[in-house]
């Protein structure tokens, strides 16, 4: 499928006349043969405790396709994958109709109407897919406070990962002034390396992870040694360097895609664990362990920055590079150490994230915005700011998916009803961006940043 998608994406190079193919979007793959409408019916199960949505196929749902004149053109019944392929005579306007009576008991259509329009222009390839989602008619209810506790725990887990990834980003900014847009790829690199060692070389994750973390550190120092160190010496402007990080991010993302393809992958170990209950919270032993390790690592980093000579020197360079170098601190050495540390922490975060959500080429880039929100909140350039900001953002993102039911507005239009119903999962990062913008408006130096850092 990926192969076909790739063809669709790049087909346009070869044939500019077919301007209808997408340059960057992922068009559904064209199956050879006749023109057809594919209908997929899935049941969305929202786990009341974790708040995550799973999709299960619905078998035996009946679908009719009507032509423009209202006559029945084709019929189909969904198979074990919840999929019904209904051939149609050609590219034209059709109406797809789901027979709601054929759905299993207790399932109701939750999103959109039973009748859908398929327009002639939607046939970008030889078929069009129509998705129906159903949900449970009567939901199991869990108390709001229990849900809240669960989201808080999930948020703390995300927050720890974010904090770990952001420390490097913030320290690199502090010591060199560079905002590294390829930092997300450093996170992915850690997870990818662990995955390759784990799957391709068959090394158990307990060994693969530390190896990948070391590789992450080397990766970080390579960034500095090969690219940004020389650029600094050549006195290339920071804006140009930032654009270079963007270019590197593109290269790396495609290298990851080239190596492992676009699918989300799982490690071989510690998969599908049952969660164990701690009061209202349900958490897998794996996640509990990674969170504990994250916490220990972060405390260690904070302690090192606060107490050790090297840590103090790092903070001095971050506060004022010129002054620090005039007091005899080797700022180049500090910068190298910061890159190593940043790379290792990012790799660790990537592996933990990969255990939780799976390994994919864009997993780090997707976290990058949340990291930015975190370090903006905490104060750009401050290591403690990054810790606190990342943690707060993580919790905030998870908790805001749970609305405040005592607040009126259940029936208000989007997005105002989010206060009551919670932010939809697909848009759950939005509150983090909102925080970022509010912080920039009100206190651009962040919670822990200092005023003079802002230009």
């Amino acid at each position, binding site marked *: 499928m990926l192969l076909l998608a790739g063809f669709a994406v790049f087909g346009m190079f070869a044939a500019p006349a077919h301007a209808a193919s997408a340059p960057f979007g992922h068009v559904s793959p064209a199956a050879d043969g006749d023109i057809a409408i594919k209908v997929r019916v899935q049941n969305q199960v929202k786990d009341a405790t974790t708040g995550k949505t799973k999709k299960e196929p619905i078998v035996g749902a009946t679908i009719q396709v009507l032509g423009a004149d209202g006559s029945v053109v084709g019929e189909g019944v969904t198979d074990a994958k919840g999929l019904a392929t209904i051939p149609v005579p050609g590219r034209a306007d059709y109406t797809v109709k789901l027979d709601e009576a054929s759905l299993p008991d207790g399932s109701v259509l939750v*999103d959109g109407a039973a009748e859908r329009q398929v327009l002639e222009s939607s046939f970008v390839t030889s078929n069009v897919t129509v998705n129906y989602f159903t949900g449970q008619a009567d939901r199991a209810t869990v108390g709001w406070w229990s849900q809240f506790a669960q989201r808080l725990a999930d948020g703390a887990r995300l927050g720890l990962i974010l904090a770990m990834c952001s420390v490097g980003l913030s320290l690199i900014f502090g010591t060199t002034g560079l905002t590294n*847009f390829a930092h997300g790829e450093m996170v992915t690199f850690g997870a990818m390396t662990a995955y390759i060692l784990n799957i391709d070389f068959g090394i158990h994750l307990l060994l693969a992870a530390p190896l990948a973390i070391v590789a992450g550190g080397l990766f970080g120092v390579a960034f500095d040694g090969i690219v940004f160190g020389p650029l600094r010496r050549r006195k290339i402007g920071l804006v140009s360097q930032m654009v270079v990080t963007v270019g590197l991010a593109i290269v790396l993302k495609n290298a990851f895609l080239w190596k492992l393809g676009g699918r989300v992958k799982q490690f071989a170990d510690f998969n599908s664990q049952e969660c164990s209950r701690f009061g209202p919270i349900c958490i897998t032993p794996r996640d509990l362990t990674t969170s504990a390790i994250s916490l220990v690592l972060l405390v260690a980093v904070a302690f090192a920055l606060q107490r050790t000579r090297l840590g103090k020197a790092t903070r001095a360079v971050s506060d004022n590079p010129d002054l620090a170098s005039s007091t005899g601190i080797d700022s180049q050495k500090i910068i190298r150490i910061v890159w190593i540390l940043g790379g290792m922490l990012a790799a660790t975060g990537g592996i933990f994230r990969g255990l939780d959500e799976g390994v994919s080429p864009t997993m780090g880039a997707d976290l990058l915005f949340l990291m930015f929100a975190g370090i903006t909140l905490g104060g750009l350039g401050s290591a403690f700011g990054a810790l606190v900001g990342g943690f707060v953002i993580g919790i905030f993102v998870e908790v805001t998916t749970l609305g405040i039911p005592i607040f009126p507005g259940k029936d208000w239009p989007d997005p105002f009803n989010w206060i009551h119903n919670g932010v939809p999962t697909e848009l759950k990062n939005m509150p983090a961006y909102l925080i970022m913008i509010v912080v920039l408006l009100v206190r651009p130096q962040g919670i822990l940043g200092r005023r003079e850092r802002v230009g």
Partner: protein
Amino acid sequence: MIAGILDLPFNDILRATLSAFFGVNAMYFAIAAIGLNVQFGYAGLLNFGQAGFMACGAYAVGMTTHYFHISFWWGIPIAITYAVVFGLIMGIPTLRLRADYLAIVTIALAEVLRLLVRSVTFKKKFGGSDGINGFAETFRSVTPFDDAKRYKMYPFDASNGSVATVLLLLLFAVGALFAGRILTRRFSKEGQNRTLVQGVATVLSFGFILVISTYVEYAGLSFKAIVVGWILAAILGLFVYMLMKSPWGRVLKGIREDEEAVRSLGKSVYSYKMQALILGGVIATFSGIMFSLDRGSVQPDNYSRDVTFYVLTALVLGGAAKVSGSIVGPMLFWGILSFADVFLNSLFKEWGNQIGIFGWKFVSNSSQVGMIVQGMIGLMLVLLMVFRPQGLFGNRKEMALDGR
């Protein structure tokens, strides 16, 4: 191995490359790059959210029939309104701060916009991940080309009507003027008669374009968008050129060099940056409009952050802070890209569905070709920024300054 290379369909590769030169992608990238040039090239603003501005245009025209149920032409003022609002949201919190904040916020907000328009929550308004279809009928009916026919880019081709001939000649003349300027600036030596050199370069360029155009043909549908789009690009290019020749443009360039110095001379830097951000954004909305008109549909994933970065690469390739750079850059960009892609894909087929060097197979499925080509874009951006920040046709004197 060598024989394999010789067997490649070179005619097809050439045709694909040349078609990409004038094609829809080069066109809509050029318009976006003209806008980005105002922000990044002239004012030095690191706008990483150009895709968001493009989406503003695309969704504005898409929503006219889909949601507002009004005439298609209202799409243009709505697009401009969207772009202004989007620019204000981006600019107000960031433009007083360091350049990094603008980059972070623009990239994040463009992504927010994309997530919003593709969300199930707002599906009624924006059509979710399927996007919006069927709004381009007005555009199709008013442009004087037949959808079913194929058109040659060559102005005197029998299939083109007289309208097309005149429009194409006009476009080629403008293009030749640009090319002449670039070539002169890059290659003329001290003491040469610049007017003469430029005249010769322009005439040669015109001839060259004419020769190329005989190779290139498009389907009627795309041909409309291509002709209209390039005319629009030329107008917008002229607009930016005039602005940058004016004292307004001088202030912008000053801000790029050192905003504190400009502030000390009594200019409201914040206001100028905002103007540049919004103006560039408004120009970019036309890119989104033209792209969606060509495709007859709007899809959220065509406005991902990668699009911004590709536009940026195309701009840097042609040379930032030059109008000609923002137009020639995207043409070169798509020329190079389609060449690489078609070449590698042909090689892939020719060598038995794999490409390898010394036994190491680095392409073993065809989607990897796409990834290599896209990775190449990133590499191109890095190399350009490090070794040729002035672009391929950079001014010699300016290049010397960068070495300092």
